Every structure is written in C-alpha cells, then in structure tokens.
C-alpha cells in the first residue's frame, strides 16, 4: 500500500492498428480506507469510526473528446488499484482518465494513441 498518493499512469500497446481492439492498463497508487476499526474487544467486537474514510469514487475514460466509460467505486476498492479495459482504435486521439476520490480531489493522466503502420 502506498503511503502517499502518486499520479495515475496509463500503459497501452505500441502496436495499435486502426479498428482493432486494444488493452489499456491504468495504475493509480491511492490508499483505500473504510475508516472503520474493531475497537471493543471486551464485550462484543464492534466496528467504530477510527480514521477518516478515503477511497476513489469515480474513474472517467475519455477517448478524444468523448466520454466513453465511467467506473463507479466504493470504499471496497483495493489500495493502489490496477484497471484494465479494452477500447476499439477508431481514431488517433489521446486517451484520458480522470479519477475523483470521496474528498472531491481529482487526478488525471493521458496518453496519445498512434497507429502502427
């Protein structure tokens, strides 16, 4: 688990051909906490609020100017998640991912799609 948040990174294949499906991998080092802890062991174990809740709540994928996908998440998301999804190469345009966490903070990453001849 990353102690600090690191900007998201995108990895794509270098051999993308027009109208073919390609895989996109997005890595984001972001800790995830439900904010709860078991604190009362003497009677019946109960969860209590222990630390502020923190998780990624949305990921948006843009291909060119178009919003193509939204990933909606909860506090069950893993620490430092890796997202993999597929897109069809319909244009030579940048892919942009935008992350928003539950505190309303935003992170972005983008990568250009270039066809291999």
């Amino acid at each position: 688990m990353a102690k600090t948040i690191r900007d998201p990174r995108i990895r794509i294949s270098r051999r993308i051909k027009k109208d073919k499906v390609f895989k996109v991998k997005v890595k984001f080092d972001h800790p995830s906490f439900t904010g709860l802890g078991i604190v009362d062991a003497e009677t019946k174990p109960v969860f209590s609020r222990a630390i502020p809740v923190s998780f990624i709540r949305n990921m948006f994928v843009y291909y060119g100017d178009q919003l193509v996908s939204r990933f909606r998440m909860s506090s069950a998301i893993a620490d430092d998640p890796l997202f993999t999804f597929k897109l069809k190469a319909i244009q030579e345009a940048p892919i942009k991912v935008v992350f928003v966490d539950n505190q309303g903070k935003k992170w972005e990453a983008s990568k250009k799609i270039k066809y291999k001849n």
Partner: protein
Amino acid sequence: MKIFYSLIILSLCYVIIFSQAVFAGTVEEEFKIEGLISPASPKALQSALLKKLAVKIIELRLKKTKTGWPVLRLQFDTETISREKIEKVIGEIEDPAGHKYKVHHGPLLANAPLLDEEQQAIAILGDTPEAFPIMKNPITDKAASANRGEKLFVNNCVKCHGFTGNGYGTVAHGFTTWPRQLWAWNNTGEETDGYLFWFITNGRSDMPPWGLILSENERWDLINYIKTLKNPGDE
C-alpha cells in the same frame, strides 16, 4: 428606585463572577478521537494519557456517539493544563501498532459534493448501472435439468471454467482474470438464481453474453447444474 435596580444587577453580576471563579478550576470536556483502530487502542490511549497528563478520564465511549467518532471525556484543571495542550499530547501518543491518535475537528466529510465533471458524466451515462431483475427459477425437476445442464456445461463452459468448475480451463490462461470458482454457488438459495441468469445472459469481462447463444431454458439448466458443483477438496 433606580439605585435599588442597579444594586440588584450589581449583586447578580457579583454572584455570576464569584461562581465562575470558584468552578473555573475544574472542567469536563469531550474530545473526538481518531486512530482507535484495534482492540488494543483504547487501553493504550488511556494508560498513556494518565502517565503524561494530570487528567481524570471520565469515559471513553466507543459506540453510539452523536458523530460516530469515539468520544473521550476528561476532567482537568484549566489553571494547570489547557485543551490545546491535551490535544497536542494525544497527537503524540502511539498505539501498539504504531498508529498515532488525533483529536478530530469539524464535520465528517465522508463524501464530498459531486464535481461538475462528475455531474456531466452522470448526465451522459446515467447514475446507476442496469440492475439485474429478481427472477424465479421456472424449472421444477431440478435433477433432470441438472443432467441436461451438465452436457451444456461440458460443451460450452469447461474450456474456460474447467471440468470441476475450478476456473483453470485450458483456454483461460491469458485472460484478464481467472474465471470464478463455480462451487461458490453450491447450496446457495433461490435468491441467487436471478443474479446467475443475468450474469450468464449478459456476460462480463472475457465471458461472452450467453443470452445470444443459449436459449432461456438451456441457461436455467446450466444454473441448476452449476449449483450442484462441489469443491473437490471438500469431498
């Protein structure tokens, strides 16, 4: 008459000031505590606090507090110690796992208001994904249906899910994720039927939408068979 009223007001002021001077020394205050994350945390906080400060712990309430945060109620002398000093000391104490405590201030921000970008995206793509319908398995003869389902399973599912349903089928190597272990559905109630039917019909990730390939009855047969699969390790 004016003198009489002014005397009464003066005496009232004197009583208020005098009572404050008498009781100003000892106060009871509440602190919302962050960092109580393990069963050992409350005890460690209380013992460290008593060692470091001349305070009396009235109560450390972990459950059913107004804000949801654990509340520590302390009695202390304001002439010898201040609230700021207590907060500072609490912030310096570590629990047995090495986490630091902190006094919480302000409201709990569990979910900030949606950003403009999020609102625009929701307007385009919708707020919630399509929910799966609650369905009832229409097949009554489960044994015969499971037999039919076994043949369908061997012909369609085994290459990815494996003969035993362990998820290590021959062509599953190289998938984004390994297919699920199907014996997880063994002995599950009828309420899972609708979810399984929706999942098989629409597919997900590397699994194709079987609704385009198999008929409705065939999908129910498959579900009835999948629910009979058991973990070979349990036998």
